[in-house]
Each structure stands twice: as structure tokens, then as C-alpha cells.
């Protein structure tokens, strides 16, 4: 650094670097004008432009100037700091000065992309650059503090995404807590018979994974449990998990089902959740034969004992291992983890919300998930497609886009429906030889082997009608329509309206975010899109990260996805989490608050302000003191301090004052 020291006289020597970002910025901001303006700002030694500042040549410009011109403060005017601040801080450090002698002016997201008039944009860009220049002069050298990372991970959600992420990390030796809300893991995939486009059986590829989760020494599986609280920060999260009572001692139950046999309800008579009510269960039940953990549970809403207090409790007697426990209470477990992977999945659209399709009105109108169970060999009908009226369908209509691409329900395309509709069309056609009609708006089959699968279906003689079904009714116009469900639709490729009578209708429902996505989001302190999907940090460059460091997302909770994409994303989330853990420590942003002892009057105003109890009062000195490791850098105490004794690194009063003057005083 000798060179640097020679050239500096204690005065800031600021270098301003304006990025064109291709034409993203250059199109709206007059770069030359901006450069000339910057050169005129106080303490600016050099101002340069470059097509892509984030590229290597761009970064080298900065490093070169630091070395050769003794630049000791750097301002880059380009995209959002949330995008490239780390990049340019690194460049600054490479140049040989402290990385925090850097400030960014966001002239892309906040200027060129949101301003129509070029003059206006240039003017605004000048203001932001002036703010950054004025501010950076008051930056001070800072060091990042390192805190160790807890090596354990929490995975929330036991569908295919959660399972994949958990296994990946457990195999690499991490201790994984897998928390699932339902009594069993497996999610929706466990309900499917076949998977598109390869038609391999879902169970054959999923159940082995489920049992290895159960058996894995590094995985602690908590089913029928929910995360109720998350504290701490990246590397050191404290998590509260609520374990709902299943009234069975999990460690004792071996899933022999003798209690179920013994239940005083001789016949199952309650709607079975796993089969969407297409079959019945008893108050004490195993969710489904391959349930994991293989442990029964009691449903207090239907169990006689819980409802009346009077029951022979035959289940207790039936269990040789005394696993049944009516006194079981919900309990809260507390765990420490370094990273969290959210894989909470989706909820299927409720077809009853589109009344003209007659779901829940006409018994032979089914939702696609009900059909998944009907065609499933281990389903309520053993894979036979028998309708609620006991008949086999001779003609079946499959309606696409139910609850998708519709301003009145969901605007977005659910992405998986076209393909699973084709799959169901194949399975139904294969099992029943019925005439199968697909009603679609646009056939969307992007994916390996997907278009080929579509072609295969056309070859199989399945009918395709391009048109969104207008209504499904039971009033006939012709003899053949009597007793049928009549689908009214425009065949848009012909341009005529058709009425197609069928025995059975399958509504291909879209995917929606969980009803409680908002609550879950808050627990983990991340963001949601309007539709309730969890928001990724960057749609392209950080698809499984969130705005909260250390919390990653995988699978359909981020947006509609098919199984291959879920598994891929789960792998990505797992490796992101492991990259964080294997590093062993996290470097914290040094934007912590501190007290200037000489100024502090000891008024204690700041102490109750701190949400993290990082401030304590030192009796003998009669002043307050901030514990930097506890401080998260919100600056609330700083704003509250009446004597300006409290300050925040990177956000000191004078840095912000300078920025305010900067953005206002030059244009």
C-alpha cells in the first residue's frame, strides 16, 4: 500500500464508476453528462464509465485507480446494492483498501428501469451519485466479525422436496431435523400412482426414500409437528417445534394395527383424509399402509372416548406394548440449527370455487387428486376406476386449467396440470378403454420427454379439444345426452361450439400456496409473493435463497413445480445450506451500533429500544454499552439516543446527513 499512502494527504480521493449495464442504464441515463457531473463533486479524483462494471475488466478499473491514483473511496453507480454490493466491496479490498470505503448508487432499479424521460432519469441519477459521493467521504474502515455456525439443519416439510433435502444433507454427515405437519411424510407424491412422463410408479421411487429417512442415523423425524417459533440469525437459529399429541407413544408403536382392529367401531365410518374421503377410516388409524413413521394416531374429533369420556378403550387392551396414551399432551421441543430449508409445498385448488363445473354437485365430477387415488393400485378401489355411482365410465372429460390462468381465481399457470392431465388421460384410457377428451387452452409440455409423451397420447387415440370448458351441466338436448354430464365448449381450432356428453369429468386443479403461508412466512421472517409463494432472493441467481440469510426454500412452496424440478431444487437448497455450514463461520455485516462513552449521559433511553437485549447499563461508569455480538444493526437505539452518543457503523448520523445533502443540493 506504500503507493496509496504517499498519494493520500488525509483527504478523501474518491473514484466514481458509472456502469452502462449494457443498455439497461445507458438507454435512459446520459452517461457522459453524469460523468462530467461527478467530476465536479467534492473530493472526486476520477470518474469513469464502463459497459459492465461487475465484469473483471470493470473491477480492475477500480483496483488500478486505487493503486495508481491513490483512490481511497469508491462509488459505483450501477444496480442495486442488494445485487452487487459484495462484488464491488471485494474489488475495493483487492485494490488494497478497506472494503467499507465503498458506496453504491442504485441507478438501475431505482432510476433507469422506472423512469420514462431521459432527462428526468439523468437528473435523478446525478442526485443519487452526489449522495453516495458525499456519504462515502465519511466512511471508516471496518472489520467483519466472524461467528461460528451451528452444524445442524432444520428441514420443514416432508414431501419429496423435504425428503430429498434431508437425505442429501444427512448423507453428508449433517444432523437433520425433519419436521412434518401431517402424521406421515411423503406429501402429495405418496398419493400418486404413476409419474409423468416415464410412468414409473411413484411408490417404487418414493417409499425407499421414506424408509431411509426413518432409518437414517443423522435424521430426527418429527411428524405431526409444526414449527411455532424461530429466533436468532444465520448460523445460529433457535427453533421451537410443537409436537401435536397423537395419543400414541411413538417410540413404542410398531404399527401392527391391532389397536385399529380392536377399536369399538367395527367398521370404518369416517372420511379418510389420505384418500380425500373416497374411503373410510376409524378414529384410531394408520394414514396409509406405507406411512412413515409407521405409527397409528387417534383423531380426538371422532374418538368416542374423547367425545363422551365413555368408551371401553379396547385399543388400550389390544396393544401389547402399551403404546396407547390418552393423556398425551402437546409438547414443545427447542433445537439449535445453523440453517433452515423450507419445503412446505402447496395446496390443491378447490374446484368448488368454479360452480359452473359442478364439483360437489354432480357426484361423477372429480378433482384430479381424487383420480390419482382412484387409479392407484393401493387406493380405495385397488386401482379400478369406479365412479361414485358404482359404474365404470365409458367416456371421460378432463378439464385443464381449473383454478389457473383465471383472473377470478389464480392468474398464473400452474405448470404441472397439462402433464398430469396427459398422464391421467393415459391411465384412465388404459384401464377403462373409455373415450377420453382433454379440454385445454394451451398445451404446455416443456421438459425432457414431455412433448414426446403428448405425442404418445395422441397416438393412443385420446381426443384433444382446444377450448376452455364453459360449463358442465346435466340437461340434455339430444337422446344420447340423457343421463350424462354435458360439457359445453368452443372447439376453438374449428370455431364451433360443441356439446360433449360424458360419464365422468376430471377437473385438473391448479396449485395454490397454503392458506397459512402468511403465518409461516412470518415465523421464518421471509417474504411472500402476492399469491403467497415464498419469495426467492433473486429469480435467476439466487432461486433457493431468501432475504433472510441461512433460510432456503425448495419445491412447490416457492411456486408450482413438478417432481423433477422439486428434487433438483431440494438438492440446490441442501448444498447451499451445507456450503454455509461447512464454511464453519459467518461473517456478519459490521453495521452494529456502538456507544461513544464520552458523550453518553447514561439516560438509559436506548436500553428498552433494543429487541435483542444487546445494551446493558454499566453501573460504575454510569453509561450504556452495546454487545456487538448480540447487536443485529437495526439502529433503533441510535435513532432514540437524545445525545447522539449511540451511533451505527455504516449508518452514522453524519454519513446519512451527508447523503441527504448530497441527493438534494446538486440538481
Amino acid at each position, binding site marked *: 500500500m506504500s503507493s496509496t499512502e504517499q498519494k493520500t494527504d488525509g483527504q478523501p480521493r474518491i473514484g466514481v464508476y458509472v456502469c452502462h449495464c449494457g443498455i439497461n442504464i445507458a438507454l435512459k441515463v446520459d452517461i457522459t453528462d453524469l460523468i462530467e457531473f461527478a467530476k465536479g463533486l467534492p473530493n472526486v479524483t476520477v470518474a469513469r464509465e464502463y459497459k459492465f462494471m461487475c465484469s473483471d475488466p470493470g473491477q480492475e478499473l477500480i483496483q488500478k485507480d486505487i493503486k495508481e491514483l491513490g483512490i481511497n473511496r469508491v462509488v459505483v453507480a450501477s444496480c442495486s446494492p442488494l445485487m452487487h454490493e459484495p462484488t464491488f466491496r471485494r474489488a475495493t479490498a483487492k485494490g488494497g483498501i478497506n472494503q467499507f470505503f465503498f458506496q453504491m448508487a442504485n441507478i438501475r432499479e431505482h432510476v433507469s428501469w422506472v423512469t420514462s424521460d431521459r432527462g428526468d432519469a439523468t437528473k435523478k441519477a446525478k442526485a443519487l451519485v452526489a449522495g453516495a459521493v458525499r456519504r462515502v467521504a465519511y466512511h471508516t474502515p471496518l472489520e467483519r466479525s466472524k461467528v461460528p455456525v451451528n452444524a445442524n439443519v432444520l428441514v420443514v416439510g416432508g414431501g419429496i422436496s423435504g425428503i430429498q433435502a434431508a437425505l442429501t444433507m444427512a448423507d453428508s454427515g449433517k444432523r437433520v431435523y425433519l419436521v412434518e405437519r401431517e402424521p406421515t411424510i411423503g406429501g402429495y407424491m405418496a398419493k400418486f400412482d404413476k409419474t409423468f412422463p416415464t410412468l414409473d410408479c411413484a411408490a417404487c421411487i418414493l417409499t425407499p426414500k421414506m424408509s431411509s429417512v426413518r432409518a437414517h442415523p443423522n435424521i430426527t423425524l418429527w411428524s405431526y409437528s409444526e414449527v411455532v417459533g424461530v429466533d436468532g440469525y444465520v448460523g445460529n437459529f433457535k427453533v421451537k417445534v410443537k409436537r401435536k399429541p397423537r395419543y400414541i407413544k411413538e417410540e413404542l408403536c410398531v404399527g401392527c394395527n391391532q389397536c385399529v382392529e380392536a377399536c369399538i367401531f367395527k367398521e370404518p365410518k369416517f372420511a379418510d383424509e389420505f384418500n380425500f374421503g373416497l374411503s373410510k377410516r376409524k378414529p384410531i388409524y394408520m394414514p396409509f399402509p406405507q406411512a412413515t413413521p409407521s405409527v397409528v394416531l387417534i383423531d380426538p374429533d371422532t374418538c368416542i372416548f374423547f367425545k363422551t369420556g365413555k368408551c371401553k378403550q379396547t385399543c388400550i387392551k389390544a396393544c401389547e406394548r402399551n403404546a396407547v396414551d390418552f393423556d398425551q399432551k402437546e409438547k414443545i421441543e427447542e433445537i439449535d440449527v445453523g440453517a433452515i430449508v423450507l419445503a412446505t409445498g402447496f395446496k390443491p385448488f378447490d374446484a368448488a370455487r368454479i360452480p359452473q363445473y359442478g364439483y360437489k354437485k354432480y357426484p361423477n365430477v372429480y378433482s384430479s387428486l381424487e383420480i390419482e387415488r382412484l387409479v392407484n393400485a393401493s387406493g380405495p378401489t385397488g386401482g379400478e376406476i369406479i365412479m361414485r355411482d358404482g359404474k365404470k365410465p365409458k367416456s371421460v372429460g378432463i378439464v385443464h386449467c381449473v383454478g389457473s390462468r383465471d383472473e377470478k381465481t389464480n392468474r398464473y399457470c400452474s405448470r404441472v396440470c397439462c402433464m398430469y392431465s396427459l398422464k391421467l388421460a393415459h391411465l384412465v384410457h388404459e384401464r377403462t378403454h373409455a373415450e377420453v377428451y382433454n379440454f385445454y387452452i394451451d398445451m404446455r409440455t416443456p421438459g425432457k420427454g414431455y412433448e414426446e409423451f403428448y405425442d404418445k397420447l395422441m397416438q393412443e387415440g385420446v381426443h384433444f379439444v382446444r377450448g376452455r370448458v364453459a360449463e358442465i*351441466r346435466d*340437461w340434455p338436448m339430444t337422446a344420447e345426452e340423457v343421463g350424462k354430464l354435458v360439457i359445453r365448449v368452443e372447439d376453438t381450432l374449428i370455431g364451433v361450439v360443441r356439446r360433449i356428453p360424458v360419464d365422468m369429468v376430471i377437473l385438473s386443479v391448479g396449485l395454490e400456496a397454503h392458506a397459512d403461508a402468511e403465518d409461516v412466512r412470518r415465523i421464518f421472517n421471509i417474504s411472500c409473493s402476492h399469491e403467497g409463494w415464498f419469495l426467492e432472493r433473486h429469480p435467476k441467481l439466487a432461486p433457493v435463497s431468501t432475504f433472510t440469510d441461512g433460510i432456503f426454500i425448495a419445491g412447490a412452496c416457492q411456486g408450482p413445480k413438478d417432481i423433477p424440478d422439486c428434487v433438483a431444487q431440494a438438492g440446490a437448497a441442501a448444498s447451499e445450506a451445507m456450503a454455509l455450514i461447512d464454511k464453519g463461520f459467518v461473517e456478519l455485516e459490521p453495521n452494529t451500533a456502538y456507544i461513544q462513552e464520552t458523550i453518553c449521559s447514561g439516560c438509559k433511553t436506548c436500553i428498552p429500544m433494543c429487541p435483542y437485549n444487546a445494551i446493558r447499563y454499566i453501573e460504575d461508569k454510569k453509561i450504556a454499552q452495546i454487545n456487538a455480538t448480540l447487536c443485529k444493526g437495526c439502529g433503533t437505539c441510535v435513532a432514540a439516543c437524545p445525545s447522539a452518543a449511540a451511533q451505527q457503523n455504516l449508518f452514522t448520523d453524519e454519513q446519512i446527513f451527508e447523503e441527504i445533502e448530497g441527493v438534494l443540493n446538486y440538481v
Partner: protein
Amino acid sequence: MNYIYYPGCSLKGTGRAYEESFLAIAGALGLAIEELNDWNCCGATTYMGIDEKKAFAMAARNLALSEEQAPDDKPVNFLALCSACYLVHLKAQTMMDENPNLKATIIGALANAQLSYQGRVKIRHPLDVLVNDAGIDKIKSLVVKPLKGLKVACHYGCLVVRPYATFDDQNNPTSMDRLIQALGAETIEWPLKTRCCGGTLMGTIPDVGSRLNYILLKEAKRRGADVVATACPLCQFNLECFQNQISSLYGEPIHLPVAYFSQLMGISYGISNRQLGMQRLFVPLQPSLAV
């Protein structure tokens, strides 16, 4: 509550029985109703197809007049019996609210006739008023001759719930069903209850109009209806008066009484046939009532 009653042209002509019967039952229910002074035609669904601004202005004139007639600053209940009149006024009002420039233009035009429109009008449909203001219990309490065993297909038609569903479910309205059931009659499951009768098409392109009404009548019969109840003079006219032509056109005898819901109410209230304009029906209702 007071209602400014807007009859509209049909209710003085083809739909006279609707006015007669409604005023009769309204009287029985003690609804305070006064006719709008010097009302003009709402323009129906047709006028908009020639000149939209003028169409809205015609409706606005009626709205302005109704404010004149109910001077205090309370909301005005503008009661339009005919579904088309109901919608046209509602649409004009909604469009003006959605579009300030349009509103300004219309108000400006009204000024030329020394009229002003403040916007305190609430446009009401008779079914809304009966079910929500009078109330099912009140309606029930006046029944002296329950319509036991009478199977009714309640036909709402288009404009009661489309495009605006202000007081009932858009896909499956039930106000008329609840009302008819209160009279002791039985309402059939009627999935075509909001299907279009073709409106003026019956007059302009009979073949098209006939098919639409044939579908409705045929299905109503198939479902065992003794009578179709309507809340719109045009539905009633189309469904009732052309049954001979439809029968011959489709070679299928169709003979199904089509009455206003208010006539059915009147009957169950023991009001005389003449007061209810029963003599104006093409297809007499009496036989069906004998059941």
C-alpha cells in the same frame, strides 16, 4: 322505507300484469311506493348499441328525477321491476362512478334540462326489496292459500345477476326460490335459471329466439315444472306468447304457464285474479293450481 317506482315501457304494455300484480302484493306488504314522475324509457339493451353516452344520459335523467322527487338527502330507493330497466340504470350509474369524465359529461348534459344528479340513488330490484327489506317471514305471514304441490321453475333470466350481482349469487341466485317456497310451493332444481330468453331476438329473428325459449320450456317440462315464474316482462313475453309457434316449429306440443312471481304471491295472498292481471295470460294458470 319509501320506494320511487320506475315502471318502464313494457310494464304499461306487454308486461301490464307484472305492474298490476306487484303493486297489489306491495300494497298487501305495506311497502310505500310512488311512481316516478315523467320517467322516460331506459333505452333497454338496444339504445346502447347506437349511442352509449345518450343511453347513459337517458338513464341518468330518471335517476336525477328520482332525486328531485325525494328531496331530503337520504338515499333514494329506485325500484325498477323490469330486469332490463334495472340493469340499464345500474350500469349507467356504475359506469359514471368508474369514469369521472363520463360522469361530468352526463351531468353537464342534464344541466341543459335544469336537472342535477348527486348520486344518492340506490337502484333496487323487486326480489331484493321483497327478500331483504320485507323479509321472508313477512312474506310468509300473509299467505292465506298456500300453493301446496305446485312445482315452480324460478327463472331469473340474465340481467338480475349479470354483469352485476348486487344482492344474490351470480351463478346460482336463490332469492326467488326462497320467496316462492315461502308461498308453500315447491321449486324445482333449475340449472337454466339465469339462461337468456333471447330478449328482443324473438321479435327480430324468430328462429333464434324460438330455439332459446324452446330449450328453456322443454327442460322446465322435463323437470316436472307446472309453471315458470319470471321477474322480467321480456322473459315472460318470450316464454309465454310464442308457445304455439315453438310447438309447431319443433313439432312438440308445449303448453306451460309462465307467470310473474308477483302473480303467484298474489294468488297465495288471496288477491283477486283481476287485480293480478291473470286474465292477461295466454296460458291460463288456474288448471295447474288445481293440483
